[in-house]
């Protein structure tokens, strides 16, 4: 059951708009991961809910919370409750689907977010483990498919095959521990995912960004 809480502010925090840290603030956080990974104009948002999320998303404001995160809002943003309206007024199609089956990523608070436009489609499988803390257990990006263990922080970089070692060395140089890595290789492109015990410092990220096609720190 062991959770993934690292900061005192995972426990005394987040500062957020109510009513539920797992179903509202955690949902904003899962949406925010999708926001960071899409980084283009969105035309369609689909959210698939499982278990507790499927049963209680309406009452907990999970719908607007996830969309708020996708639009880049924070947990304490007073526009959070208006997010679905704001998205639809902006021309984005928004759809929520309740599933009666068990979560494919094995957690009662599961949301799978699909973001699309005419030339890009991504999917993020996230779960909200309590108190606003989340895990990301599935990623489908640019034809790559990865199943991280879940805990954040996590660095995703699009690299040329063979650069993995260099990047891992740079991350570890600042007393960061690599918990797990995985990669997906398509043609000469490689998506590398590195799970860490704490956030890498800004200098390390800037140096690694020089080596990579694209880098996202979740």
């Amino acid at each position, binding site marked *: 059951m062991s959770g993934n809480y690292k900061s005192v502010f995972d*426990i005394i925090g987040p500062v957020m708009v109510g009513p539920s840290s797992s179903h509202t603030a955690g949902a904003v956080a899962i949406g925010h991961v999708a926001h960071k990974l899409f980084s283009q104009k969105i035309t369609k948002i689909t959210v698939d809910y499982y278990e507790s999320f499927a049963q209680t998303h309406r009452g907990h404001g999970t719908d607007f919370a996830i969309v708020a995160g996708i639009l880049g809002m924070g947990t304490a943003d007073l526009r959070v409750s208006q997010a679905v309206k704001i998205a639809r007024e902006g021309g984005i199609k928004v759809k929520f689907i309740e599933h009666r089956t068990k979560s494919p990523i094995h957690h009662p608070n599961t949301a799978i977010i699909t973001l699309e436009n005419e030339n890009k489609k991504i999917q993020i499988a996230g779960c909200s483990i*309590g108190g606003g803390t989340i895990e990301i257990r599935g990623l489908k990006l640019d034809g790559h498919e990865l199943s991280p263990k879940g805990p954040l922080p996590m660095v995703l970089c699009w690299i040329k095959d063979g650069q993995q070692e260099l990047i891992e060395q740079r991350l570890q140089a600042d007393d960061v521990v690599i918990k797990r890595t995985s990669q997906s290789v398509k043609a000469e492109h490689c998506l590398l995912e590195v799970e860490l015990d*704490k956030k890498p410092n800004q200098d390390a990220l800037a140096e690694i960004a020089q080596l990579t096609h694209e880098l996202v720190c979740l």
Partner: protein
Amino acid sequence: MYQTVASLLKKCDELNLPIWELMVRTEMNFERASRKAVWDKMKHQLHVMQKAAKRGASGEGVHSPTGLTGGDAVKMRKYREQGLGLSGDDVLLAVQNALATNEVNAAMGVICATPTAGSSGTIPGVLFSIKEKLDLTEEQMIQFLFTASAFGLVTANSAMIAGAVGGCQAEVGSASAMAAAAAVEVCGGTPKQASEAFAMALSNLLGLVCDPVAGLVEIPCVKRNVAGAVNALACSDMALAGIENKIPADEVIGAMRRIGEKMPMQLRETGLGGLATTPTGLKMKIKIFGEEV
């Protein structure tokens, strides 16, 4: 990071530090942040908590969009003013602040999750009551929150703090135990006494289910925070009186985890059991969401 209460106490003993100071240093290391940055962030959390507790008990109070909750903190404030309470006024102030904070949460106002939004009234309930009683400084209140977070981190990492995973024992139970421990330390108790208060408070709430009406964080959540706050005050007093729990804190956390794992899905924040499926609870659900749910 500390995986057990025992290792936390051992470290405090080795370094001869209070729990709150150990947590400030742990956080500085984790966030690569200055002491001031970490301290100021906790000060910000405190200010959010103060604002929410005040808002919920001021004027006409706050009311949730569904109308299920709201206005009770104001009723308690007015009742206190009459001075007729059966409990002492310190206890009633804790009741008021717990109600006020959770009413703001249910009304989708801004709160600080401690450790969760559903249990966000328990810690302010305790903290702002003893602030009045002991005339705590802002610095002491911030120390209180660091101590509470130390126990919360152990609980979250070795058991759970989400109602959907382990029931309300994991939310209000954890919050109550965190508050009890922090109250002991801020009152001058030892880390060991703080851990006894934690163990007693959590033991008392083991088995508490999460059965919200219509799946909303309103009924019974708002008032369960009152139970959490009052239980915390009683357990802090017991620990300060030298009473021990007999079962150590880490074993109580283990018991909570095992109980949570055995708890049926209907009683873990799905709104499919307990108070949620009483005739009145079901009527409220239909009124809010319509027949089809």
